[in-house]
């Protein structure tokens, strides 16, 4: 099963996402902000990274930019969680190298559908 890194500064969102994904059999690791996420991403190669946009220390867009520059993450699906469905945020994400996005609020079913879309 793919292993997934979740980066979000909100513990409740992290818990929800992790719980849902673990329930579906994925292996999940959590990081509390972009900087933490980058650090963890460097320790092993995750198959998928899901990150929030607004976070202290390092935001999600920067994280994606940094990850995409790493050889291990050149082709890895990197997903943004965003409440802003506006185009400029999506474009900023794309420009940084995001694979796709998921608009908050989402429910577990949507989350699993999206992850399935990029796994395997």
């Amino acid at each position, binding site marked *: 099963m793919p292993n997934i890194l979740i980066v979000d500064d909100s513990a*409740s969102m992290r818990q*929800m996402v992790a719980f849902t994904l673990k329930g579906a059999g994925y292996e999940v690791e959590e990081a509390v902000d972009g900087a933490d996420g980058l650090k963890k991403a460097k320790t092993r190669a995750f198959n998928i990274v899901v990150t929030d946009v607004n976070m202290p220390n390092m935001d999600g867009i920067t994280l994606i930019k940094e990850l995409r520059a790493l050889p291990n993450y050149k082709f890895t699906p990197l997903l943004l969680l965003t409440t802003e469905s506006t185009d400029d945020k999506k474009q900023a994400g*794309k420009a940084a190298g995001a694979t796709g*996005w998921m608009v908050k*609020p989402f429910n577990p079913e949507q989350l699993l559908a999206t992850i399935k879309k*990029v796994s395997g």
Partner: protein
Amino acid sequence: MTIDMSKFLDTFFEESAEGLDAMESGLLNMQEGAADNELINTIFRGAHSIKGGSATFGLSEVAEFTHHMETLLDEMRAGKRAVARELVDVLLESVDCLRAMLAASKGGDAHNPERAKVLSERMGRMLGVAVESAESVNSENSTSGSQSAVGAGWRIVFSPHAHLYRTGNDPVRMLRELAELGDFKVECDTSRLPHFADAQPEECTLAWTIELRGEIAEQRVREVFDWVDGDCDLSIRKLAADPAVKSSQEAAGIDIKAPETDIKPKKPDAKAPIPDPRSASEATSIRVGIDKVDALINMVGELVITQSMLGQVGKDFDMSRVEKLMHGLSQLERNTRELQESVMRIRMMPISFAFQRFPRMVRDLSQKLTKKIDLRMSGEQTELDKTVMEKIGDPLVHLVRNSVDHGIEMPDVRRAAGKSETGLVTLNAFHQGGNIVIEIKDDGAGLPRDKIIAKARKQGLLGADEEPDDDKVCELIFMAGFSTAEQVSDVSGRGVGMDVVRKNIKALGGSVDVKSEPGKGSTFTIHLPLTLAIMDGQSVLVGQENYIIPLVSIVESIQLKPGMVNLVAGQGEVMRLRDEVMPVLRLYKIFNVASQVTDLHRGLLVVVEGEGKRVGLFVDELMGQQQVVIKSLETNFRKVAGVSGATILGDGTVALILDIPGLIQLAQQPVNVDRVIPVGHIATIAA
């Protein structure tokens, strides 16, 4: 897959509370006109997380409300909106309102929906939008599937740009997704494929033509390519319908099966019982820094090593190994002490937890009183036991209110006195010895000496012809039933005054006093023990019994010479020490212990101080100093005059800890031995 969202609610409430605190302190630090981006970002993130979480966890009311705050903050962040006082006020009020809304969702008191509505409208007006727009929080996702285009199927030409792989997207996965939608046929176009020698493995040079048959909404097909918009050339055309399919096409137009994925968030019943409905405000868990836990683990490691070392020594023990044993034991002692210190440190929290409410409080109060006041805080990182911190909160609030209300003068008065119009209240905390000291200082008018004296006379606390010195005046304000406010104001002086403050602080084993200079301000100083559970004690021997005297209260120990002690009628024995007269208490008499040492010259006199008074305690002998763990006598037995608690000594016996202020009170009345319980009795019960 159904997941009960309510299980994440507790975490959400906890982090929202933290988020709100951060927003509040951020808003309070905001300078009018100046946009501090980092600050605004922090506040924005707070609102943003609460909005995201509440929408996800089904608290739509909260989500709608937060949406406005977020939008306002977003505009500030983008520099489109200046930091104005009115804006900050609205946001602060909204923080309060959100707190109430979250508390209500958590199962506390119902909040006032009117207030949320009024605030929403105010924010809406600022944004220049109608309040209804908040609906868009949830509606922005529910648009999918409303497309009516459904046909016999689709012919899709998908030709990705070379860099597609580098976005993390993969045509294989997209084709797989398409295949799930209907009857799927694909043809690969290899015309762009370069010669093998020139092939770039990281580039995408293939293209596909897909025929997808079935009643599929165009939206569903487009969704598959949503993320690669701009990274590929895409054309999606309707397939010519088969006659068989055509007949159903009309129907299909109406029958757009709302796509199975219902995008609206699942709403768990907000009133569903949340597990563990603890009273809202009492936090029973503490956050501990990793470094503290690491230190603890280290220490335990050391302990294990020492233990195995001692085990080795004990295996085949003979006298030649005594030295090793002693060495091991002293190491064990060191480990234990360090371990104890580390464990105690876990309970220690920075005093900023108690301080953080003050910026807001002072701001609100100064607005209410139309005074101009700056609050300056320092030493917020000073650590203090969690229990002490919780109990010091109210007295601190009282003292700060007092400084703001009584201390700082109105701006015109200050100007007339040649001071700056803006008053300054300073909160400071630092460690001193085994104590933590908290200072509350204002640069106001100082204590009104004449008013205090007049009031005290009226209350009968002071004789008509008594002319108290400054210290005595300061003492007066701590006396019961004393409140200087001429009228009982809304802010302070509700009758319960400084006497309650002092009582509460004393109950923590601390003290409070005040220094004041007319026209320059006053300083309240609180001394508190770092922790309530452990203290440094001096063990003393009386007869066969050990007693512990708190080390902090000991002034000195002396050997008496004949002639130092006199018998004074009505006062008992009194000693003269360097021009100071103090009563002498014979502990063996007070506690009714049989002692060989009854001659004052043969024992020792420990001079102790409490509440500014001194007494000499007569004991047989001084034993060692040690840290003792305080056990409550009240929970195990009952309150005993002159004793504050008990502890268990190394050899397993119980020693009573003396209550010095209590003993001093005892000294002021004729000793009545009958009131005191024989100590042997206590020891058996407490053990």
